[in-house]
């Protein structure tokens, strides 16, 4: 694949991971501070609960892109392991990839619609437009679609390579 595209994808991936790590540590200290505040200063942080939920939504939807890229989704791989390197295995992979694409696009389109509607509602504590929180869905699943498609392209290229490598022997 185009080396420049790969480099840019890796860059996005790197930034995503760093941002998620920062957000998670922030969440940890926010939650801890809320407990300390409640008992030591008898005052809780009124937006802590809501802010934690919203950041968690972002972490999860951005994280989905990352786990799809790394092929870490939970799946029963008995059949695909057995068929790997075979033509039928490739057909199966393609079908699975298609399933993923359909589902992710449904989520992506739903996410766009939702975040547009939700821009007009504000959250209870932070009073920010809910649409900003909902934006995690289209942005996360949009990235996921990109990674998903790139993964599939890689699978196709690998399959073609393997076929090529096999051909000379088949001709003999």
């Amino acid at each position: 694949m185009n080396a420049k595209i790969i480099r840019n994808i890796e860059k996005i991936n790197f930034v995503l991971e760093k941002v998620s790590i920062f957000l998670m540590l922030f969440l940890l200290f926010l939650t801890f501070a809320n407990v300390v505040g409640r008992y030591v200063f008898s005052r809780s942080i009124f937006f802590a609960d809501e802010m934690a939920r919203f950041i968690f939504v972002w972490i999860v939807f951005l994280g989905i892109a990352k786990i799809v890229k790394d092929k870490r989704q939970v799946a029963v791989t008995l059949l695909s392991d057995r068929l790997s390197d075979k033509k039928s295995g490739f057909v199966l992979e393609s079908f699975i990839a298609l399933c993923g694409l359909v589902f992710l696009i449904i989520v992506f389109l739903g996410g766009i619609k939702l975040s547009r509607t939700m821009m007009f509602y504000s959250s209870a504590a932070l009073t920010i437009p809910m649409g900003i929180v909902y934006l995690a869905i289209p942005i996360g699943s949009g990235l996921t679609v990109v990674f998903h498609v790139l993964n599939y392209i890689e699978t196709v290229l690998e399959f073609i390579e393997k076929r090529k490598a096999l051909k000379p022997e088949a001709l003999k």
Partner: protein
Amino acid sequence: MTYFIFFGILLSFIFIGVPIAYALGLSTVYLLITELEVPLVLIAQNMFSATNSYEFLAIPFFMLAGAFMSHGGVTKNLINFSQSLVGHYRGGLAQVVAVSGIFFGAISGSAAAVTAAIGAIMIDVMEKKGYSRPFTAAVVAAGGMVGIVIPPSITLVVYGVIAGVSIGDLFLGGFGPGVMYGLSMLVLSYFICRKHGWGGEGSFSWKNIGKSFIGSFWALLMPVIILGGIYGGIFTPTEAAAVASIYALFVGFFIYRELKIKDLPKIVAQAIYGTVVIMFIVAAAKVFGYAITSAQIPHKLGMWITTVAPNKYVFLIFVNIILLMLGTLVNPSAAVVILTPILYPVAMEFGIDPVFFGVLMICNLAIGNITPPVGLDLFVVSAVTKLSIDKIAKAIYPYIIILVMQVFVFTFFPQIITFLPNLFK
């Protein structure tokens, strides 16, 4: 007919290897379009509301707490403490693994983490003392699997949030069966080691116990903080997990001093993506749960089961069998996410205690962690020992058998699970 196609899509997709989140989502799409006639935007909406949850935030926090502790240098101390308690018995090192599994389970929320931590130290030590390699691998894998039953447990958090059952009660409920699992392995290892003539190490002394207890004290205090905090009404499970993480950070940096700042990003990233793997399925399953409830599938299934199964024991045996089989194919959290919306309402119709039902589910699914071909713990020990899964499988079957027998004991004596939660009510 629609329902048959619906479950047909779900099961065949899962079986051919479509990632579970997609299989749940797409089978639901079918049901939404044909039966319920609601817009597909509902899928994104439900995924959002599933993740917009303060309670699920407990999952990454518990993962962090366990990881900070084990990277902080607590492993050696816990193993030393276990050694001082049971090391002198016949097959001492195998016993040490089982006991460390129980202790480690109490600071870690997942089985694979426990297996990896104990395996990293004990596999070498056991081999040097002449234990056979497959036996060593089997003992470590089995010893680690209790980590998912003994609180804190990620899978129990998942069940608790989905079913709306108190996580504190579930945690206490996991103690009894978790400890029983661990102790039963201890007994089994004793007999296996006697047959092979593997002896004990060192001798029993109160002085050693005292000394190594002081070394593990800070680690063993963590479960006390978590359960005490939740039960004392001091904080919610999510907050308990956050406090435990901060505590583990403190202990790792200042007491055991093996935690390094530069390790933090990697540990946090592991916790994040471990969580996301579960949350992706949870999110996709939320709309699945909504759809089957709207179509009244659990209700209809319940009516059917109540006519087939004369009492709750028959139902529970049936559930055990399904869970034991499913547990061999998918990881415990994923299985809980798929099955809870279907089975929980039926269990309620039989008047089964929700805490008991949840813990029993996890006791079943935990066994899947050490069952070939895809038990996660087996992969962990297989990577360390370089043994094939088949070789380990032969050595681990005795353990699987005694664990399965215990599941049926729990089924008929629910007090083993409900005793502790009821005591604190």
